Each structure stands twice: as C-alpha cells, then as structure tokens.
C-alpha cells in the first residue's frame, strides 16, 4: 500500500468510528427522553399508543438534534467573527 491509500484508509476508519459513536449516543439519549415522554406509567405491555408516540418522538428528537446542532454551529461562527 502506498502513502495515499494508507492515509485514505485511516480517514475512512476514523470517520466510520466517529459516526458510529455519535449515532450510539443519539440513540441512547433519544430512548431516554422518549421513554420518559411516551411511557409515563409502564404497564404490563407496550400499548399501541405508546408505540405510535415512540416512533413520532424518535423522529422529533432527531429533528431537534439537527436544529440544535445548526444553532450551535451558527453561534460558534458568530462568536469567532466577533473575536
């Protein structure tokens, strides 16, 4: 393997691991927060309304994550421009 392909495989692997780690944390947080919201009083089984709530909540939490991420990056840019 030459220099360029060594470099590219390092990049590829770092990227894959970073993305996996990020997805893991997102899923963990999403479960924690949506469980809180959708299953306030755990019954003997998961009801269909709890299931519907959970799938909506997952999408909503991801939308919130994206929005927060964009707002945060925006603010960092602003602060950098001001300093």
């Amino acid at each position, binding site marked *: *393997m*030459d*220099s*360029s*392909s*060594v*470099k*590219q*495989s*390092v*990049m*590829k*692997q*770092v*990227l894959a691991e*970073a993305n996996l*780690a*990020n997805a893991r*944390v*997102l899923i963990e*947080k999403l479960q*924690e*927060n*949506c469980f809180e*919201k*959708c299953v306030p009083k755990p019954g003997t089984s998961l009801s269909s309304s709890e299931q519907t*709530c959970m*799938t*909506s*909540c*997952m*999408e*909503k*939490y991801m*939308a*919130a*994550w994206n*929005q*927060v*991420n964009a*707002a*945060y*990056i925006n*603010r*960092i840019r602003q602060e950098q421009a001001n300093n």
Partner: protein
Amino acid sequence: MNAAQTGIENLDLEKLNDKDKTELRQFLANEQQRSQIQAQTHNLTQICWKKCVTGSIRGAKLDKGEEGCLANCVDRFLDINFLTMKHLNNMRS
C-alpha cells in the same frame, strides 16, 4: 482484504509521506472538533428538549413554537456559558 477493511492497527503508518501526514493531522483535528461539537449538541438537545417539548407527542415534526423555543434555548444557554466564564474571571482578579 481491501484497503477499506484493513484496521488501523494493520496499516503501515511508516509509509505516510510528509504531505499525507500533514493532511491526516488536519483531518484528525477537524474530526476532533466535529466530535466535540456533536457531544455538546447531545448535551444541549437534552437540556432544550426538556424545556421546549413540554406537551405530549402529537406528531413527528417540531411545531413552530417548539422550533423557536429550541433556537432561543441554545442561544440563551450559550449566553449563560459566556456569562459564567466572564464572572469567574472577574472573581479571580
């Protein structure tokens, strides 16, 4: 086994020339920053979710009020962040 499947531990890093080393360092610095921002985003999303998404979940989309609240929440939290730093600095002197 092709290059993409080779673990980093099996790669011969000695083969990297100076140009690729510099590029790789830059790439790693960027990735480190990206992952810090993502970690802070996880933290902020949880804080602001609790503040802004207070009703029961009716749909998969954020409504207008929630969107506005999230934007304000991020900005105000960061205001607090800066304010805390500033005040701690003042206390020191």
